[in-house]
């Protein structure tokens, strides 16, 4: 961009770009991101053809069932992130909120609160409260003390995980095993398959997503949220309860993440373990980012990331590729899609 030379690149800001061209740029960036990921996997010793085989294998039988089970918590964390991002609250405490969701649900199970018939519902409600509470801490810190929520939520993740460790290596450890895990839940405390291999966790996720879709697109609160995000000062002047909208969004976001923790422990693990919330922060951010914070698209992207998770697990088992690979691919996809924004908004010209 030097001014002195005659021929040079010039950057123009585009006034507008038709929708199909925007989609084209987005698709191209996804292709680039996935190509880089495949190249890295290739360098790590996985032939692209074998990779294609593994990926195709994910869509049949047991694997697909696994994907659908995995999709539920991912949809819920993606929803949690997207709700908070809608009002400009960077909720990066999804892992901590999942941990507390699991702990609260586990507490209901361990202390046998309520009759067996309603136990699972109590566990879900408790998990939502646990997640909401942990997210509200960061929300209050931001509103009351102007503590940056990015730092606060990230640090609270570590606090939550160490609290979980304290329970699992102490009061809640299963006396029958030496492992850091709680006693298994009773059968009526678990989310079971509904007929055709579709887990009840997915039903929970879809109900919550539909409710959130209604909240955002059709309710007054959804309208307020858009207002608060666009211009909080203006919203305040016009009588929008900015503080209440912010806090309630934070609470709902945390509740969704808490439910994700509940779904994970009640469907996949069946007990509290050390790692039921591992790797969900960035997955949530990624899902929210790719779905442009729209709940319905969150469901679709959540399913695709579940495919990525299950493929990652397969690669871990059969090729000894560590699961952090999934995180690497997620980061590459976010980077390439975020970069596509530049090409959508700018045009590069070469002047001779």
């Amino acid at each position: 961009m030097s001014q002195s030379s005659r021929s040079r690149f010039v950057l123009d800001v585009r006034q507008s770009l038709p929708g199909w061209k925007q989609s084209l740029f987005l698709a191209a960036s996804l292709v680039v991101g996935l190509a880089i990921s495949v190249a890295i996997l290739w360098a790590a010793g996985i032939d692209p053809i074998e990779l294609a085989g593994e990926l195709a294998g994910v869509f049949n039988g047991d694997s697909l069932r696994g994907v659908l089970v995995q999709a539920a918590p991912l949809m819920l964390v993606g929803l949690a992130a997207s709700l908070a991002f809608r009002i400009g609250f960077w909720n990066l405490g999804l892992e901590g909120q999942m941990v507390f969701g699991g702990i609260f649900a586990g507490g209901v199970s361990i202390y046998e609160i309520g009759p067996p018939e309603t136990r699972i519902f109590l566990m879900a409600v408790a998990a939502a409260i646990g997640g909401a509470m942990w997210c509200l801490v960061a929300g209050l810190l931001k509103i009351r003390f102007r503590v940056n929520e990015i730092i606060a939520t990230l640090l609270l993740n570590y606090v939550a995980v160490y609290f979980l460790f304290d329970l699992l290596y102490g009061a809640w450890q299963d006396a029958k095993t030496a492992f850091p895990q709680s006693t298994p839940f009773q059968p009526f405390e678990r989310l079971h398959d509904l007929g055709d291999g579709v887990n009840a966790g997915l039903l929970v996720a879809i109900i919550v997503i539909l409710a959130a879709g209604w909240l955002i697109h059709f309710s007054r609160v959804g309208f307020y949220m858009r207002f608060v995000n666009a211009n909080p000062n203006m919203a305040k002047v016009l009588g929008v309860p900015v503080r209440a909208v912010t806090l309630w969004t934070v609470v709902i976001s945390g509740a969704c993440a808490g439910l994700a923790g509940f779904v994970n422990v009640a469907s996949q693990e069946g007990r509290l373990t050390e790692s039921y919330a591992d790797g969900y922060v960035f997955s949530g951010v990624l899902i929210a980012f790719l779905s442009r914070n729209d709940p319905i698209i969150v469901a679709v992207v959540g399913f695709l990331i579940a495919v990525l998770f299950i493929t990652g697990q397969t690669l871990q088992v059969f090729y000894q590729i560590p699961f952090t690979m999934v995180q690497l691919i997620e980061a590459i996809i976010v980077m390439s899609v975020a970069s596509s924004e530049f090409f959508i908004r700018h045009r590069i010209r070469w002047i001779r």
Partner: protein
Amino acid sequence: MIAFITNWLADAPTTAVPYALAALGLIISERSGVLNLTAEGLMLVGALTGVGTCLTLDGYPVVALIAAMAAASCVSLLFAGLVVVLRVNQVIAGLSTVFFCQGLTGLIGTLANWQNKHIEGLPRLDLWPLSDIPVIGRIFFMQDAIVYLTIVIFILVNWWLSSTMMGLRIRSVGESPAAADAAGISVALHRVLAIALGSSLIGLAGGYISVVNVKLWVTGMTGGRGWIAVALVVFARWAPWPALWGALLFGCIEAVIPHIAAAGIRVPQYLMMMTPYLATIAVMIWVGATQRVGGSEPGALGQPHVREERR
């Protein structure tokens, strides 16, 4: 009691150095107007490179630390490209860089089989006769070379940012990129430079943790220290010296944890490990309660500069 305090404070500089160096690196890049959340990831890159170099060369910790700086600097160019050239949202770019680094270091560390391999590391210096002074000698004159080097780096960076042409240009780019641009200072160039230079210090911080302190590589071994460094920058109001004092404070807090257990005091281990994070949050509350809004942060922090969109 004296023994307890001596042992504790003698360990504090070692735990403080990563915080200090990472915070200083972040300060350099944030002074140029780039909101930098990458510390946690780049520290991992530095830590892995340090151990990897030591294992490959069978020793040479100093070379390993230089390699750690270079590697973090190289990876930071990816972040620089995203935020400076492509003008990606700096929070999204920073977060994805962190998770990129977490994924990459986990992958390479496992595939290269560098996990849990003990290395020689850097010895503590023995500055006779100073080291033989009771209490004080143990705390001040029996540290490793990097502890003293950190103080030198702080003096140099402080001078560089406040008194050299380059430092002033970097700060002007961070305060008002449009004005700097009009004065003929290349915003993009100075921001990339600030990110790369700052990241080399972050890499050194990571390399210090693995090569000097822990002496091995474990996936995700920085354990949130990078995020604490980000908080430290806010606490220090983007000034080098307060960052050093803040780092010492956190070093003291973190260093006390193993000594309490070693002294035979029965406390829940995992609850104790929360303290650095809770202390950081407490410090952030204190900052929020006492500082004016945006009182001392660089004027253009977090804003991409787009000449074609200038108002």
